[in-house]
């Protein structure tokens, strides 16, 4: 009897953790850094954490869909760089608005190509996108001859730096993206299909879902959100550097999605968790660099966070008894 009660307690903890665990960690991190460093606990710094978290948070939406549907895309960092240099180079010809739109469209097309490779040839996603990771990066270098593209277009820069009612535009953009992502995932049939395919592809197929189509659209969506992120990130930096843009981005984004509670291997996930996780990662980096911790330690820390997050999800799932 005691046995069962302690198990129930564990399950309850696991369930509450699912809802509030990440929020708890965020508050903990904010509290620790705030008490350690006066520069951290300023309104300005909090806003900037919020702003920088959008880099990860926006790209994370597509990745969340991708991981929920049971796949992976590790080409996003290079894709971000490639579409960034390509799109920003269009500015002189088609203007800022056109360039921004074409960046997003090109990224979506690249995602679509990934999807076609993966579904039609039945190659595992991780290895296809691994190849694409290097191809996109090489194309970014080759297209620019390794010379950064400086961005002076006002519209483009506004997307990364502008303000509406004193709120940073990236934050507004992120909120719009989340609203869209939420509606798609929770209120549209397609969202159901994403989760269904990730949970049980065989059952999905027998239920008449076009599994390949769902996966292709998911990869296209990954590209779409990477396109938006690319504009935001490059606008913030004021330039698109083929070597540096999006370096390690896939890593941060996957970490955020997994830390946010989405299970590797597919199934239901959480966009809210992703958003909080993006804040956690950004706050961690911000805090560590304010305290002048070596940037190499930051890499080590993010790596550990990722492994920790995956292991944590495993344990939580085992406790809830949903998987063996």
């Amino acid at each position, binding site marked *: 009897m005691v046995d069962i009660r302690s198990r129930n307690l564990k399950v309850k903890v696991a369930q509450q953790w699912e809802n509030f665990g990440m929020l708890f960690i965020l508050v903990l991190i904010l509290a620790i850094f705030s008490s350690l460093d006066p520069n951290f606990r300023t309104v300005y710094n909090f806003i900037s954490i919020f702003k920088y978290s959008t880099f990860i948070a926006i790209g994370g939406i597509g990745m969340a869909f991708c991981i929920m549907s049971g796949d992976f895309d590790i080409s996003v960092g290079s894709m971000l760089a490639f579409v960034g240099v390509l799109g920003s180079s269009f500015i002189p010809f088609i203007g800022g608005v056109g360039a921004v739109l074409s960046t997003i469209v090109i990224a979506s097309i690249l995602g679509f190509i990934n999807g076609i490779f993966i579904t039609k040839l039945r*190659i595992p996603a991780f290895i296809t996108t691994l190849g694409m990771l290097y191809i996109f990066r090489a194309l970014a270098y080759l297209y620019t001859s390794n010379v950064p593209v400086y961005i002076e277009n006002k519209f483009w820069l506004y997307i990364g730096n502008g303000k509406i009612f004193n709120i940073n535009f990236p934050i507004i953009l992120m909120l719009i993206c989340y609203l869209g992502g939420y509606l798609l995932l929770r209120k549209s049939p397609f969202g159901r299909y994403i989760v269904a395919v990730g949970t049980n592809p065989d059952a999905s197929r027998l239920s008449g879902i076009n599994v390949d189509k769902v996966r292709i659209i998911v990869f296209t969506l990954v590209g779409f959100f990477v396109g938006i992120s690319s504009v935001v990130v490059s606008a913030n930096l004021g330039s698109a550097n083929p070597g540096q843009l999006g370096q390690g981005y896939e*890593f941060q984004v996957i970490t955020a999605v997994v830390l946010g509670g989405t299970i590797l291997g597919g199934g239901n996930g959480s966009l809210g968790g992703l958003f909080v996780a993006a804040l956690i990662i950004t706050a961690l980096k911000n805090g560590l660099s304010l305290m002048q911790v070596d940037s190499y330690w930051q890499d080590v820390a993010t790596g550990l966070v990722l492994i920790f997050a995956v292991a944590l999800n*495993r344990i939580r799932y085992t406790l809830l008894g949903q998987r063996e």
Partner: protein
Amino acid sequence: MIKFLKLYERFGIFIFIILGSIFLAIASPNFLQTNTILNIIAQGTYGAIVGFGMTFAITSGGFDLSVAAVMGLTSVFLSLLIPVLGIPLAIIISLLVASSVGLVNGLIITKLNVNPLITTLAMMTIIRGVSLLVAGGRQIVISEKMFSIIGTGFLAGIPIPIIIMVVLFIFMFFTMYHSPFGRHVSAVGSNESAARISGLNVDLIKIMVFVLVAFTAGVAGVIRTSQTLIGIPTMSPGFELVAITVTILGGTSLAGGRGNIWGTLFAAIFISMIYYGLNLLNVQIFFQMLSVGTVLIIALFIDGARNRYLESVRAKGIKV
């Protein structure tokens, strides 16, 4: 057609090598000289050596993205240890450090049940961070000139890296096809649950595979460091792609169970031929990255098309 496909799986890489050779022979008058050929093979040694390890990983159904980072770690340790401990001991300890990364990979994958891709992706970042921390963010020059003999010396007219590669090849070949361990690796990759039920210690086998991969990465790190005489914490970025590409191009099935050590060896030489050809064209270095990525996608394309074809044949009731 089916016969052709079966042959392709075993010998497909030779088609690439022959076509590549013909092309290079036409394009470059120097190509058919012994020196050039030895040089190309020598350039292929890292890819082959790490590819051997990767072949084991993929045969077991796993995957390792941390190999380039391990090379960097080895390089840093060598550069720091050689002045203190002398060359032989420094090499041994560096290789042990490299192998221990594999041990950590294996433990995380088997005991924490984390997907190999994510584990090694995270470890790639962690190990690179650690290398930079240990090296203090710098490159460290090795003043012991004797050390360069490993990477640049000759034995009986043959570059020492090639000799190391051949020795490792023989070792890996026997391990893969004729040792119980190698067969158990195949078993795990072929049908993990059956291997478990047959009483194999699947976790231990997987851990040993990751130690082996990290060890090969360490060996490649030693050779590379010896050639440059610099300890480089960020050595060979993107090298994991080369290792994976040579393995898959060599005919090792991504599905696991069937490793092709021969294929890996020749695929590494083929990639080296591409590099040589690109040098002839005098194009930007980024073309190397592009070409390896493209070769990987092509190799996957062939693999995928083959599987689809076999599937359709099976549905027609023809035995494959």
